[in-house]
């Protein structure tokens, strides 16, 4: 995470309380005419930077294989949070137009995320600095926001709404490295045991062997439910990614009626909690049955009542039998 003079200035303004005017670009807050204008402008970029562009190069003799890492799915991008913006808001204006193929330097001439998200970054940076990705030597420098949050794809939780989609999106960010030897190697630090060699990616199934039904968990919750510290209700999830030693291993933090899923994956839905059909945590139940968390108090009372009734019944029967037997014995004597 590099800091330039513009970021320093923004931070100073923020601290002084005058720089709150960050450029929010949520879909709802951008008017239709601007969106249309931006998308029209973006079509120039997508002439090459899209699957269709690569399949049909606009000029003969262009080596389109160079674009394999800078190809954008236009449909996905338009639906993403940044999909309402002009590409030039983040990518340099110097390479825009019909003068292509442009200089490869255009690939890295990108504005830092703090240009728009200064306040958020200011708040999250200490958390990121405490995270496992920042603490391993040589890894921190390779990380940008985009490493985990794909700016051409991601949709904010509040707008995505469906927990299954949120899980798929967010876990993709983690698994892109942690489930791929090739990508992991790009970030991997040196191996402590064999100097000069990169750390080998630990197998994701092996390190999660302790977790019952690991695959079911990965479909239902995000890696960050356990790999970030707990935050207070209503607060944004921490950006401090915890390693396997520090990650949450207490199943009950989710699997209980006071489930922490309410402040994590379901935090945007928790205000809609109405205990539908009498179920505890019915907003969670709308997506996943979480044993221990999604119970029906009335059913529980009925079941416990019947078990206690059976116990009391046999106990009473036994005591009466014993008394009757003793009395019969007494009479015989």
């Amino acid at each position: 995470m590099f800091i330039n003079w513009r970021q320093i200035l923004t931070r100073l303004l923020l601290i002084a309380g005058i720089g709150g005017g960050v450029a929010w670009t949520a879909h709802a807050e951008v008017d239709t005419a601007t969106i249309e204008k931006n998308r029209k402008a973006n079509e120039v970029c997508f002439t090459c930077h899209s699957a269709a562009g690569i399949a049909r190069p606009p000029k003969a003799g262009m080596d389109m294989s160079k674009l394999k890492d800078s190809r954008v799915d236009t449909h996905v991008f338009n639906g993403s949070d940044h999909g309402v913006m002009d590409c030039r808001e983040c990518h340099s204006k110097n390479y825009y137009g019909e003068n292509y193929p442009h200089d490869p330097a255009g690939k890295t001439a990108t504005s830092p995320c703090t240009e728009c998200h200064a306040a958020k970054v200011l708040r999250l940076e200490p958390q990121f600095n405490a995270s496992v990705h920042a603490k391993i030597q040589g890894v921190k420098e390779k990380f940008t926001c985009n490493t985990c949050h794909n700016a051409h794809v991601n949709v904010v939780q509040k707008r995505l709404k469906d927990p299954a989609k949120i899980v798929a999106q967010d876990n993709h960010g983690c698994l892109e490295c942690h489930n791929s030897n090739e990508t992991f190697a790009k970030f991997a630090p040196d191996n402590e045991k064999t100097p000069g060699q990169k750390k080998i990616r630990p197998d994701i199934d092996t390190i999660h062997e302790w977790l019952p039904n690991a695959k079911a968990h990965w479909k239902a919750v995000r890696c960050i439910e356990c790999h970030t510290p707990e935050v207070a209700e209503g607060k944004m999830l921490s950006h401090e990614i915890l390693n396997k030693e520090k990650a949450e291993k207490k199943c009950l933090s989710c699997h209980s009626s006071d489930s922490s899923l309410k402040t994590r994956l379901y935090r945007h839905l928790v205000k809609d909690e109405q205990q539908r059909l009498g179920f505890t945590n019915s907003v969670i139940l709308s997506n996943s049955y979480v044993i221990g968390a999604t119970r029906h108090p009335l059913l529980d009372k009925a079941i416990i009542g019947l078990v206690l009734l059976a116990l009391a019944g046999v106990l009473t029967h036994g005591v009466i039998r014993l008394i009757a037997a003793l009395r019969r014995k007494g009479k015989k004597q």
Partner: protein
Amino acid sequence: MSNRIYLLPLWIRLWHWSNALLIILLAITGFSLHFADPKLPLVEFALAARIHQIAGIALVALYSLFVIANIISGNWWQYVPKPPGVLQRCWIQAKWYMIGIFKGEPHPYRVSEEQNFNALQAISYWVIMYMVMPVVLLSGLIFLYPDFAPDRLFGFDGLLPVAIVHYITGAAIVIFMIVHIYLGTTGSTVTSMFKTMINGWHEGDH
């Protein structure tokens, strides 16, 4: 008149005690999982989940063997209450449990190789083993392989009805077990039926 007959072959006794052990394990771990709460520490959650899964799979295998052995040996016939007068015999047996047992009256039925169980026993064992048990096992297997559950149902996760059925049938088996263990003390002596279940020999005045 004393009645001593070899009633239970070894395979039934082995099945019975293995079944009992697995059901007790499943009941304890199932309770721990369903009522999971930091204020109510029972079996540690991940451990309970592992034990419940292993014991559940073992019970499915044991139940399959039980059904096959019942068919081959003809033991399934013991669970069928034989007419005529099934309801009347049930009523006589119930009356003995409610009144006669306290007066020291003799058992209202006589155990034989042809008829191991009284009418109430036969009906309740039949319901538990051939109606409740398959449902609890099948719902447990769907829990283990949730892809077989419906995706969504009435706006909830499709696993919810499976979970509720598993919970209710599991609780029914626990209630049956409590009553079953207690009624095991109602033989000629308090321990005679437990001895039968160990050595296979029925001894007593009925």
